[in-house]
């Protein structure tokens, strides 16, 4: 029974590999293999390559000087950040908000089986993200360290401990969110705030640990120095990776104990949380003044309501917008200092700053990608839009506008802040503005294009759409490539050609895919939507 549930959960997470939502049928075996290979190559080739390179730059020197434990500590820290960051935003909805909760609870299935299958979803998501760091870390260590049974076992045990820690942190935070938001009226906003507070706390702890490590490295004179105080537990954790037997046993035992405690907590509360519909008191309707809106505004408000009603969407996509707004404010406050620092370090770099500003905004805004699932998100209520007297092009346009509200406006605010503090010329400001807007529209178009080509209306958990879908992954990847191109051009071309010329070239280059996508969305987009 548990096996069946786990298979169902895995199928839900990985449905895209086996089922072609656009054609409405299962992929062929060949197609599935090709698809998985493509995905693995992207994950391993891009992210794995990136972290493999990082591991390669550290492992030989550190292992050679007896600081292998520090190597594991740093790489483990990165894996922990990536794993928690990757899974925590969807934990609450994965654990407690699945649409098939009632169905499963009505079946003769032990509650613990349902919980374990849900936990497996959280575990696999965290594993996927942390593995892209942990696998290269282990491989590089095997290459650098002399072979022995303990050095063989160490990275494996260390990886298991880190993956379990990611799982513990994510599920514990998911549980806190569930408990606190149970009696809140506006659950999505509260969930978002609590999760963000949790993340902030987590990062404070993380950076404090990082500072401790940095101070330790700055004061290090010999690998044989005694390690005490705050460094001691970190040292023990790092030693697990090197295959030290006692730390392996102690750290693993501690992790397993915490895991058992968290599982106990979850198992005691799971049923109550899942079956508590709302803790908010019932609001009795009182007729008030009616606001009449036009069709466009009504559709826009509907899209905004959909986004703000989901903590999963807010946490996964809204974070980029918040970072951009905070960035703009920070730039207004500390921009002059930053400008002086940059010019002191690199000389006159006005042009580069303009290009890099565009690159930074593109990097952050690409994480928003609301259009990459906005059509799929309609799910079974798609009939409402399809039967209303609204043109399909207007529906698609509103979805794009909604995305741009979350990317374009914060992006423009950042450009304004940069213009006020970074001493940019008028032409550079204008071109940066154009490039940023163009970049945001391009990503919105691309997301919409991908979602129209690969629509999935039969989801049971929106996390699968917002976080785990190939649509979002492809849009994110394209965004990173685009932002990477801007940053590379800023670093290498701008000093030679000047920022203005580079901004102009980039605008012209990105205008080409934009025009192609705009034409496709105008000509074939409505038909694609209507065929759903």
């Amino acid at each position, binding site marked *: 029974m548990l096996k069946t549930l786990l298979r169902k959960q895995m199928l839900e997470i990985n449905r895209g590999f086996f089922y072609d939502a656009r054609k409405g049928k299962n992929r062929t075996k060949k197609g599935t293999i090709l698809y998985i290979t493509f995905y693995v190559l992207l994950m391993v080739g891009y992210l794995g390559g990136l972290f493999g390179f990082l591991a390669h730059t550290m492992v030989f020197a550190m292992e050679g000087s007896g600081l292998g434990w520090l190597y594991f500590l740093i790489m483990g820290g990165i894996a922990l950040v990536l794993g928690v960051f990757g899974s925590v935003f969807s934990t609450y909805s994965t654990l407690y908000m699945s649409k098939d909760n009632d169905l499963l609870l009505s079946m003769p299935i032990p509650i613990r089986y349902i919980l374990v299958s849900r936990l497996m979803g959280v575990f696999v998501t965290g594993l996927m993200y942390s593995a892209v760091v942990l696998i290269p870390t282990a491989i590089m260590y095997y290459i650098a360290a002399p072979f022995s049974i303990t050095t063989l076992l160490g990275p494996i045990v260390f990886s298991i401990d880190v993956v379990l820690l990611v799982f513990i942190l994510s599920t514990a935070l998911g549980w806190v969110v569930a408990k606190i938001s149970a009696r809140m009226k506006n659950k999505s906003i509260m969930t978002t705030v609590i999760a963000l507070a949790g993340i902030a706390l987590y990062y404070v702890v993380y950076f404090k640990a990082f500072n401790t490590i940095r101070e330790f490295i700055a004061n290090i004179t010999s690998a044989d120095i005694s390690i005490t105080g705050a460094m001691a537990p970190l040292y023990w954790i790092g030693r697990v990776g090197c295959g030290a037997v006692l730390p392996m046993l102690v750290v693993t035992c501690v992790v397993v104990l915490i895991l058992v405690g968290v599982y106990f907590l979850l198992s005691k509360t799971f049923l109550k949380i899942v079956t508590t519909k709302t803790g908010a008191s019932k609001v009795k309707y009182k007729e008030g003044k009616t606001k*009449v809106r036009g069709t466009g505004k009504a559709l826009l408000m509907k899209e905004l309501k*959909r986004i703000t*009603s989901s903590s999963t969407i807010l946490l996964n996509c809204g974070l980029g917008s918040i970072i951009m707004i905070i960035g703009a404010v920070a730039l207004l406050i500390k921009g002059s200092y930053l400008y002086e620092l940059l010019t002191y370090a690199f000389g006159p770099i006005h042009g580069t700053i303009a290009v890099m500003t565009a690159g930074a905004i593109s990097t952050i805004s690409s994480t928003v990608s609301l259009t990459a699932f906005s059509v799929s998100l309609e799910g079974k209520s798609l009939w409402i839009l399809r*039967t209303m007297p609204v043109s399909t092009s207007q529906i698609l346009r509103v979805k794009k506008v909604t995305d741009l509200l979350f990317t374009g406006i914060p992006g423009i605010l950042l450009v304004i802040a940069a213009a006020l503090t970074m001493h940019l010329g008028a032409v550079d400001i204008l071109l940066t503005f154009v490039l940023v807007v163009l970049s945001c529209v391009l990503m919105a178009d691309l997301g919409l294009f991908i979602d129209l080509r690969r629509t999935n209306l039969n989801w049971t958990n929106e996390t699968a759409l917002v976080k785990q879908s190939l649509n979002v992954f492809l849009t994110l990847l394209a965004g990173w490539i685009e932002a990477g191109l801007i940053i590379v051009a800023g670093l290498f071309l701008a000093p030679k050609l000047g920022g203005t010329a580079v901004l102009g070239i980039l605008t012209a280059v990105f205008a080409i895919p934009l025009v192609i996508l705009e034409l496709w969305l105008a000509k074939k987009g409505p038909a694609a939507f209507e065929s759903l």
Partner: protein
Amino acid sequence: MLSISHLTKKYGETVAVDDLTLEIANGEIYGFIGHNGAGKTTTIKAVAGILGFDSGEIRIGGLSIKDNPLECKKRMAYIPDNPDLFDYMSGIKYLNFVADVYGVSAEDRQERIRKYADAFELTDNLAQPVNEYSHGMKQKLAIISAWLHKPELIIMDEPFVGLDPKAAHILKQMMRELCDNGGAIFFSTHVLEVAEKLCDKVAIIKSGKLIKSGTMEEVKGDSSLENVFLELEENKEDPEV
């Protein structure tokens, strides 16, 4: 009001609706019956403008759904068999959204919401999120939203499923009132007693083909609709009865 002529819809090689022709005039409640998978929902979705079709024509008030989809949709309303509404809105927000899209004035929507929500005893729940509604409450909300812009034609797929007896009675009254005021209703149902009592005309579909249609008297004669339906269903060798 609604004219379906030679409608054919295929899913790959499977013919879901085969050369179906029907005429629904103003003032008529038209029942559409058939076994599961007969092609009722496909026909209804094609009329509602959700599904495209391979050949034939659907006209609403003389306008082709293919050529003038928006004008046709303005004149009609559709209620699916399973009302998956916008769960993230409250009932009143959903109704206001529908009213905004159809351009219903503030006065008209207030009056209609008050009238129908009171009739269905849903008024107190309108501030609650739709995801807290029962199936029946969602069905009531879908019905209110369909009546909100005073459509000339209402298309419904199994509208009585999930409704309590009182709500079903109110819906029947609303259907009759709309048709008495010149509107038309085309709906599918498996509840043959309801169809027999409520409908002016009825059509029976089997394997995508229309096998009998006409006024209730023409279709059932001296027998009951249930008997006629079962007889037609049993006659598998020759669907062209």
